[in-house]
């Protein structure tokens, strides 16, 4: 991120924009909390918060991987397809026990991530097209493996989807654990530094001798693995494997969460806390509109407005 983009002519406007980009999402979440506390009956209940958190968990997990990809000035459109693929594979291999099925899921996801990473890092294809190919192909493969919806009756999966530890659902624990893990990786590890350097200026990173190709491969593999975790958790919660519609438009929800959270599309920065808040903001917005009997179409239009506002606040900061 360079300071050149900030024009000296309008320092106040730039400062407001900067503040909005950084903290706007938290202000938005706070505003929705206040509005809901005042207007929505039964909003301030543990039960409601648990429901909202469980619903947001899969989007959040996918958004973590997306934040990494966007941090390298890339994007991963294949995450929804990977969710569908992991649902099919889980249904097919659950006969060998949950650990065995999870292993196969991880292998499939890693293969998709490696393919994405190889196209982006080794061949030099733009991330949008590379992951678009895997998105189309991955969804097709998921449906080839498992042509229609299949109920899953497995006690281990059932407990994964609806069980809890000391009253906190496993879904929330897993999502929280992954948030901490990814935040640690971005902030405190060499990998995180290298990732941000590549996103900031790939040529400079290359000239500085950073392992650009390896880091990019790892980023896309991580994104696919996180999407697979989200796919398995969503399947466990549904108690059914649904390769046709699971994860549809998930890539867009995840990108929205990341962008609304203040991560610029131009790379070089990753805001994990912002991404969490972004996912929560979209979830709260949807829940608020539904609770007040507004039609789902309003949710989409409201989401569109939030996205435009978020990028408008961040404008002039990135190169694109």
């Amino acid at each position, binding site marked *: 991120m360079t300071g050149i983009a900030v024009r000296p002519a309008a320092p106040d406007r730039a400062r407001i924009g900067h503040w909005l980009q950084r903290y706007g999402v938290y202000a938005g979440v706070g505003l929705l909390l206040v509005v809901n506390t005042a207007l929505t009956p039964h909003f301030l209940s543990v039960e409601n918060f648990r429901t909202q958190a469980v619903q947001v968990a899969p989007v959040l997990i996918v958004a973590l991987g997306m934040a990494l990809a966007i941090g390298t000035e890339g994007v991963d459109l294949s995450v929804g397809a990977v969710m569908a693929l992991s649902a099919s594979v889980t249904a097919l291999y659950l006969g060998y026990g949950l650990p065995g099925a999870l292993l196969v899921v991880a292998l499939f996801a890693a293969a998709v991530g490696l393919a994405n990473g190889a196209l982006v890092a080794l061949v030099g294809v733009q991330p949008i*097209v590379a992951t678009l190919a895997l*998105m189309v192909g991955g969804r*097709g493969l998921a449906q080839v493996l498992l042509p229609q919806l299949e109920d899953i009756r497995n006690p281990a999966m059932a407990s994964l989807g609806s069980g809890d530890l000391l009253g906190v659902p496993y879904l929330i624990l897993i999502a929280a654990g992954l948030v901490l893990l990814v935040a640690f990786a971005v902030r405190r590890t060499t990998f995180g530094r290298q990732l941000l350097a590549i996103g900031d200026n790939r040529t400079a990173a290359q000239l500085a001798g950073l392992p650009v190709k390896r880091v990019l491969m790892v980023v896309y593999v991580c994104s696919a693995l996180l999407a697979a975790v989200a796919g398995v958790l969503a399947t466990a919660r549904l108690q059914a494997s649904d390769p046709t519609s699971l994860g549809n438009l998930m890539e867009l929800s995840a990108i929205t969460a990341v962008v609304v959270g203040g991560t610029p*599309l131009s790379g070089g920065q990753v805001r994990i806390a912002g991404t969490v808040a972004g996912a929560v903001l979209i979830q709260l917005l949807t829940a608020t509109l539904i609770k007040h009997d507004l039609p789902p*179409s309003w*949710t989409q239009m409201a989401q569109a407005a939030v996205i435009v506002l978020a*990028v408008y606040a961040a404008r002039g900061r990135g190169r694109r």
Partner: protein
Amino acid sequence: MTTIHGTSKGAPPPAPEELLGDAPGGAAAEARAPGTGRGERLSALAQQHGALAVLVVLTAAASLGFDSFATGDNFSNMAVSSAFLAIVALGMTFVIITGGIDLSVGSLFALGGVLAAWGSRYGTVVALLLPLAVCGTIGLVNGLLIARARLAPFIVTLAAMLAARGLLLTLTDEGAETYLVAEGSFLAELGQGSTLGVAHPVWITVALFAAGAVVLRRTRFGQRVYAIGGNEDAAALMGAPVARTKITVYAVSGLLAGLAGALNAAWLASGVTILGAGMELEAIAAVVIGGTLLTGGLGFVSGSLVGVLLLKVIQNVINQIGSLDSAYQQVVSGAFLAVVVVAQTWLGRRRRVL
């Protein structure tokens, strides 16, 4: 088919490379292109006509392999079902040549169809003008946000995609209502009728592509589209009206998506609300397969037509095999897209900077 190719000859005036060292593809590459060796020419040829070669080979093979492939009925079915995607891909080609992207076209396609079907009760003029006006306006707003407010095309058109889908659901009582196109109306004739044995949507598509090729290759506007995609800053320094050109391109993309949706609704005799999901990606795939670079500055409309036909022939061949589930079509399309972009990137390697 019009084969006016927009890459090597009438390229925009070469951008002064020293102004900005990292011109991706496009104008700067064109400046180096003349006088280079045979390998360069061969790779450029493969990049431009590779999809056409694959299309010819695949069509020939399918004609030999399946009795029911090379029939008039099958060809005219394929032509009509390609027409709507092709019109969307035409607008997308212009957008991608400027270095942008338009994710809203799938939603605008569905919205255009619903508006046309709803408007058909008030006569043909309303049925045709309403989708064009609404979708064109949404495209215009996209363009304004991208060119004037300088927001990323990817994210602006993503928001427009959500907003247009929301608008469509509001109009149709959350998707519960389907409006029908009145039988025997001019709109229905436009969608379902044929002249000289060729369906009207196909005629319209051919006319639009001919016009698109001429605009891109022979007008000042087309030259600016290439110049902006090649190097936007250089284009601005040369005095090209960058913002106006980009706004026009996005408005036209929205307009064409709305038109395609209206024609599709006329063809189906109803405005189906669930159409168009994923169409933006299909259109992008067709444009990229047709040899247009996503980095901008390089591309041509006839390639996009070939890309659309290729996707539809693949789909048709998989249907012909019959025993294969339709999901295989997605696997093949995805794999094909991957192969195409790998080949393109390798062929164009010398044109790229890093």
